[in-house]
């Protein structure tokens, strides 16, 4: 099994490496909105002194860490697998003795991530000197505590995205469904603004949803803003959602593949 993953890694890394020129465009695309949110909120905070206790530096550190957390927990599975289900090229992968979504596509996503994070490092350093954040609240324990959560959140997000991608077995409109999923992330993950500045209702709901695990929760763990019970609660939520996402994906995939072969594609 290890050998299989090693080979898959070599193939997928080589494949992603071909597209390194596109990487710059992708990074640019994806960097612009966090930087805009950062600019908007720091401008408000500096005109008033603080926004509900959030100072300029709080916003800068929040979005600087968000850039990393978002990059670790996001994925592009809908773009790499969606069309394969629609045009039938998935057949070739289905006859292999390994799971297409949980091996090849997964490794492909991780290879993509490895490349984008490498590209992010110099950009992040430049932004660090432009915004000069003060990271004095960050502790090693915080960073170490956030890593398992981010890995867990990556898998939760990946499994849900893979389930949405698998809806392509039934309908061609998966991309619209995925857009709706993105809106949920925007609303409940803390991507637009730290969740504690969102309306109360949204905060209440967000607590029980997996989206805050993608950004808000790990960021706050790294910045050392959460108490011990809050951290434990987050870990429990991560565990529960990982199991739920796994069950969801298994169910969707199994029914989808059955349909796929029934059509005879």
């Amino acid at each position, binding site marked *: 099994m290890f050998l299989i993953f090693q080979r898959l890694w070599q193939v997928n890394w080589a494949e992603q490496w071909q597209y390194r020129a*596109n990487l710059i465009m992708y990074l640019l695309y994806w960097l612009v909105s966090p930087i*805009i949110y950062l*600019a908007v909120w720091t401008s408000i905070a500096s005109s008033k002194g603080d926004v509900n206790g959030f100072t300029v530096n709080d916003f800068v550190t929040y979005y600087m860490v968000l850039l990393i957390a978002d990059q670790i927990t996001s994925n592009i599975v809908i773009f790499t697998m969606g069309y394969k289900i629609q045009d039938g090229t998935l057949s070739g992968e289905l006859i292999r003795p390994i799971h297409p979504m949980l091996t090849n596509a997964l490794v492909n996503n991780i290879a993509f991530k490895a490349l984008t994070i490498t590209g992010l490092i110099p950009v992040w350093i430049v932004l660090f000197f432009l915004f000069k954040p003060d990271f004095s609240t960050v502790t090693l324990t915080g960073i170490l505590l956030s890593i398992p959560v981010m890995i867990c959140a990556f898998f939760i997000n990946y499994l849900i995205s893979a389930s949405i991608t698998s809806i392509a077995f039934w309908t061609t409109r998966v991309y*619209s469904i995925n857009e709706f999923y993105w809106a949920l992330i925007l609303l409940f993950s803390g991507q637009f603004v730290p969740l504690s500045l969102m309306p109360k209702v949204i905060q209440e709901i967000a607590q029980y949803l997996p989206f805050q695990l993608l950004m808000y929760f790990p960021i706050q763990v790294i910045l050392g803003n959460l108490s011990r019970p809050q951290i434990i609660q987050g870990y429990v939520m991560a565990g529960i959602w990982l199991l739920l996402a796994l069950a969801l994906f298994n169910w969707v995939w199994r029914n989808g593949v059955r349909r796929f072969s029934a059509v005879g594609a």
Partner: protein
Amino acid sequence: MHTLKLLSAFFKVNVQMALAYRADTVVNILLNLMWLGWELLSLNIIFSNTTSLGGWGIGELIALLGVFRLVNTMMIALIWPNTEKFNQSIRDGSMDYTILQPANSMFLVTFSRMTIWRIWDLVLAIVLIVVGINISGDTTTSLNILTFILLTVSGAIIIYSLWIVLISLTFWFTKFDNNVTILQALLDAGRYPATVYPVWLRIIVTFVIPIAVATTVPLQALRGDLDAVRILMFIAIGIASFLVASRVWKAGLKRYSGASS
């Protein structure tokens, strides 16, 4: 007259193409409404924490959202589909047929594809602008509104001209099919007044990829922030950039040699 006839022909063809995917249109409009809801909610969240953003009130930001959506609609309804067709036609040589037609090639390349249902988006954008102006209310004179309209048009022309230059580059570097991504990537910066951005970002969105000239500047005119000299300057830049773009397009066209040679 000739141009209008062509335009209506393109329109008809694109309506027919869109009618084949009616359910998609409904889904797209629903998604569009969802994003509008999100945009208004995010403005509401911002203004529940502050009374002004860079000196601008909520009404002005709603109007800015409208202007942003106008530019965004131009991107999505015209620029993207036509870029896709254009890049394809350079790769497989079908650009030959476009050049052979007895009409201005730049015109044909701009209007042959349209995402029709986006007309709905134009209506929404205008509603947002009108509502926004009414909320901010106080001092808008009819002269301000006139300059606002003029600068919105000239801003859109500047973005359009930049697009023409970007796709013309394909004539020199055939493998340049990322040409429009950079425009789209920075477009989001048009949602908020450029005055809140750090200096380096403001320079990029004003001078390099002039998104702010098409969004923030018309709103400034509406607020009466711009003097006559600057208004005339922005209109002049609009005209100049269109002239430069059509020059570049013609020069590029001369380099085009078909796909087989």
